[in-house]
Every structure is written in C-alpha cells, then in structure tokens.
C-alpha cells in the first residue's frame, strides 16, 4: 500500500510543488496521475523514490515510512520499486541483455540466477530475441520495453512510470501501456504519470488529477470524455 498524508513539498528556491496531497493506493492497483506541466507529478514520483524528502506530511510505502527512512536504508527500499523514465536511461554501450542484467548485478544477484531470469523478463516485455542488440538498434517503443524489463529485474512490488510514452509514437505507446496493464495483472501496483488524454480515456482506470500541487480529482473510468 502507498499512502500520502498531507504531503507538502517546498523546493529550496521557494517553489511549492506539492501543497497538501492525500492519496491512498492499494496493492495491485493501477493509477494514472495526470495534470498540466508543472502540476507536481514528477515531484510526487521523486518523493516516492525517496530522491527528495517531503517538507511535511508522511509517505508510507508498505513497511517503509519514507519520512523516517534513514539514508543507508534507501537502496534496500528502492529494490521494492521499479522505475521507468520518459528518456529510457539505457546504457548505449551495453546490450539489451546486459542492460537488464546490470540492475541485478548491482544488487548482488548471483550470475546463475541472472542468466535464468533475464530471458524470462525479456519474454514478458515481448522482446525475446533482442538480447544481443544494442539500444541504438531498437525503436523507441522497444527501448522503453527494455527499460521496463530492467525495472522488473529485481521483482519489485511497485512500478513507477513518469511519462513513459512521452518519447514514443502513439502506436507504440499503446503497446507500452498494454504491457503496463499486463504487469498490473501479474499483481504489481502500477503508477503511470502521463498527460496523454487518449490513453487515459482508453484504459478506463483510476485517474488522479493534480493542479498546482493539489489533487483536484480522483476517480475511476477515464478523465477526458
């Protein structure tokens, strides 16, 4: 379960990015976070990743209270999350296989297990034959699926995607979104930040709308009909 309790975020330059956010997301839910540019969506994701700390209020994720979480425990907390960014953030000098394996090596997974698990994950994201390719040889949609595979590598409970389709053409966007739905069906909590109305409407999921750092709508079944 993810819970924001009256969360405020004030950046050092004085910008109030979040102004009293209350939000509860149950395990296994699928949630869209929408809102204009500058509404505070990315800030919410940064707080969830514990990249930033809330100025006040509490954020609870599973057994972790992020307000009280000590710095040295942050890496272990992050293993519960999988993140996907608009710009993929893949290593250009590593193959698809190595990109995914990297996330597992970094947390000390034995090579044997990595060898078994990476092909399975590439299968999940419908890229079973691309292991030996480099990111530059793939389309934007395929690269984002590699990023998604990497996010899944350590078997996290929660997947966070900040504008995952922002750099991808619309047809490929559907594919990514379908994958995120599929991952949600596999039991993971999925939070997707987006401003693509068509997608949000198409999937008829829970939609949380932010404006000027406040939640102004929270309902199920699309937004922009």
């Amino acid at each position, binding site marked *: 379960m993810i819970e924001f309790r009256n969360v405020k975020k004030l950046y050092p330059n004085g910008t109030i990015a979040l102004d009293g956010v209350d939000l509860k997301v149950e395990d296994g839910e699928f949630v869209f976070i929408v809102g204009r540019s500058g509404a505070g969506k990315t800030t919410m994701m940064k707080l969830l990743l514990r990249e930033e700390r809330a100025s006040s209020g509490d954020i609870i994720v599973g057994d972790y209270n992020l307000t009280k979480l000590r710095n040295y425990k942050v*890496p272990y907390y992050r*293993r519960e999350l999988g993140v996907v960014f608009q710009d993929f*953030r893949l290593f250009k000098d590593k193959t698809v296989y190595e990109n995914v394996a990297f996330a597992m090596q970094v947390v000390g*997974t034995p090579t044997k297990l990595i060898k078994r698990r990476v092909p399975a994950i590439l299968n999940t994201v419908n890229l079973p034959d691309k292991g030996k390719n480099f990111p530059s040889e793939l389309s934007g949609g395929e690269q984002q699926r590699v990023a998604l595979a*990497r996010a899944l590598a350590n078997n996290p409970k929660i997947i966070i995607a900040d504008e995952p389709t922002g750099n991808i053409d619309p047809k490929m966007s559907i594919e990514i979104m379908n994958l995120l739905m599929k991952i949600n069906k596999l039991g993971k909590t999925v939070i997707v930040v987006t401003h693509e109305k068509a997608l949000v409407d198409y999937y008829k999921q829970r939609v949380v709308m932010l404006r000027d750092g406040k939640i102004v709508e929270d309902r199920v079944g699309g937004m922009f009909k």
Partner: protein
Amino acid sequence: MKKRYRLTYFIGQAIKSLWRNGVMSFASIAVLMSCLVVMGGFALLVKNINTNLEKLNLMNQVVAFCFPDAKEEEIESVASAIEKMDGVESFVRVTKAEGLDNMREQAGEFKSIYDDINEENNPLSDKFVITYRSEEDVTNLLYTLNHTEGVRTVNASVDIAKAVLNIKNSIQWIFLGFLVILFVVTVFIIINTIKLALNSRRHEISVMRYVGATGWFITLPFIFEGIIIGLVASVIAYFVEMVAYNYIATSLLSGITMITVLPYKEMGLTVFLQFLAVGVGTGVIGSLISIGKYRKS
C-alpha cells in the same frame, strides 16, 4: 537468496575507468611516483648520513692525545684518570702502532707513502677515544681532560658533529616542506582524476541508485581506482629509486673511501613497503575526498 559481490567486478570497473581517463590517470601515477621517489631518496640520504656519522665516530666522542714520547706508566695513569671522570660512557686506548695501521688502511692504494715510518720513528702518540654520555657532560669533561697530567691535547669533534647534525636537520625540514607540497599536489590531482571518473559515470551511477545499489557498491570501484594508482606508482617508484640510488652510489660515491654507501638491497624491502603504504594511502585518501564531495553535490 545469497547475495554475492565479486572483487573482480570492482577491480575491473576501476581499471576500465582508469583506462578511459588515461591522461589524468597517467598524471596521478606520475606525480605520486615522483613524490615517493623524492621521499625515498631523502629517507635513504638520512640513513646514509647516520651510518657515516656513526662510523666516523663523530657522535658523542672526544679524543685525548698523550705525548709522543710518553712512557707506558704515564699513559696508564691517564687511563685511570679518565676512568674516574664524570660523564664517561666508555673509552678505548689506541696505541700509536694501531694509529699507524689505521692510517695505512685509510690511505688504501697510496699506503706506500708510510713505508718509511716504522716502530722507531712513529710520530704519532697514543690516544684515548672517549665516548661521553650526553652533550651536557662535554664542557666539564673537556676541561678536566685538558688539565690532566700526561694529556697533550684534546680533539673534540663536538662542533663538527653539531654542524653535521644541524645540516641534517635543515635538510630534513626543507625536504619535509617540499614533500608536504608535493603530496598536496598529488592528492589534488588524484581527487580530480577520481572526480572525472565519477563524472563520466554519472549516468550509470544514477541508474544504479534507482535500482537500489548501495552506496559502497557504487563507490568501491573508485576506491579501487585510488588503490591501483597508489600500487602502480609505488612499484614504479621502487625501481626508479633503485636505479637512481645505484647510479649515485656506483658512479659518484664509489671513489670516495671515506663515505660508506649502504647497499640498496639491504633497504629494498623497507623502502618498498613504505612506498606501498604511502602510495596506496594517498590514493585512497584522494578517492575518499572526491567521493565525499560527489555525495554532497
């Protein structure tokens, strides 16, 4: 699930990174190496000065000469007088015959110049080499010796010993100051090398953070980079020192019989271990500082 981190991973990452920033890595190693060579050279110089001072008996010793024509009982009375003096640690009698032998020995290939001198016409006197306990005793001791029946003259090399000590101390301070500056420069260059390495892997590090890599997992390769810089620098410094030392010992000092030059082999292991400690230490300090700065930014 058992977690395993491989040492080879960290070392591999470190070597890759050193290779990628070749110029800076080279500069770090070169400067650290120079630093070690200067430090080592200085330490070896001091060791040699000490050995020679000891050999020349300049330290804590005065020499009392008897008269050339002194009778045996006169000399023995001087001996018993010295025995009773305050501040005397020990003393040795050197007969004029022994004195002559010593001179012949020191003359080396020119010893034939003493061929005409024999037991009959030996111009030397018997002498006593007296080792005193401390500097404070010298003035009294010299006074007493000078007023002892049968003592012709006293040769105190106290001034020479002091002068040599002073020179040694000044050299020590100059070198120390020089070394401190060199090490500061070295640490600074290493910091920059590691910072460059951190910077060129910024993207990789940010992804590592997102997938939950611990701080030490991320930073260990950079500490290994510092260790490798220190290791390579110390090994090279060891050999440069050896070549330089042996060159100076054989081609510059070998003709001077007065000076004893200690063989490098005897001190090699100590030199190497000290280089290793200082080199690796400096490398690690450099990495830790840059990692600390990186973490804050």
